[in-house]
């Protein structure tokens, strides 16, 4: 495998999936091309200014931002459906339409979903 697409479609907090996807993507960067695709509720991960301190959890958007070399695709229709288009997002992402999102997904050697 030369490329992997990690697909996340769940919210960043309340379960371990987003944290798990971020960790898996981070450790894969040294060996293969990595794309993190955010779909459905997964798009909440890229909203800037999250404050997770009361949850006792790390700010996952900050962690994602720290991995600048990680390609992050955000499914734009999911953003629109959730009324998030006016929000400020972290800077290291690509907002893409459905066609482009699935094109990158299909062109990756493998897809690992969370």
């Amino acid at each position: 495998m030369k490329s992997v697409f990690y697909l996340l479609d769940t919210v960043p907090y309340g379960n371990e999936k987003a944290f798990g996807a971020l960790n898996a993507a981070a450790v894969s960067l040294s060996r293969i091309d990595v794309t993190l695709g955010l779909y459905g509720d997964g798009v909440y991960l890229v909203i800037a200014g999250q404050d997770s301190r009361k949850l006792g959890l790390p700010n996952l958007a900050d962690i994602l931002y720290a991995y600048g070399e990680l390609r992050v695709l955000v499914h734009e229709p999911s953003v629109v459906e959730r009324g998030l288009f006016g929000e400020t997002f972290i800077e290291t992402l690509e907002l893409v339409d459905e066609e482009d999102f699935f094109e990158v997904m299909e062109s990756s050697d493998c897809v690992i979903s969370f």
Partner: protein
Amino acid sequence: MKTLTIVLTDGPYISEYAETAYKLAEAALQEYKVNIFLYLDAVHIPKKGQDPSFFTNAGQLFSGLTVKGVIIRACARCAAARGYLPEEEIIQGSNCRDYFPGIQITSLYELSEMLSESDRVISLSR
């Protein structure tokens, strides 16, 4: 020989994925070197002492796969979060006293190694 890696994130019995992975791995062994990486709740699969009553014991199934040559590894962070700790000594192919033989706790970096050396990857997750 080609390599297949199966990535699991579900624990046993909450879904059919553990059993499905077992069947896929066993069938694939005829043509592939097979790896299974246990991530998130899937690190519960190899726990010893399971008594699922109406289901097949997932830990036994996976331990049986290691006897046939399947490499099964569990994420260290996920395992520690759920109370499974690795030890230095490897006994019966396992570095965790709570796990069935043949299954080891390892770094998440081994997932990226498995992916990079694989010809096929199957992810089973809800």
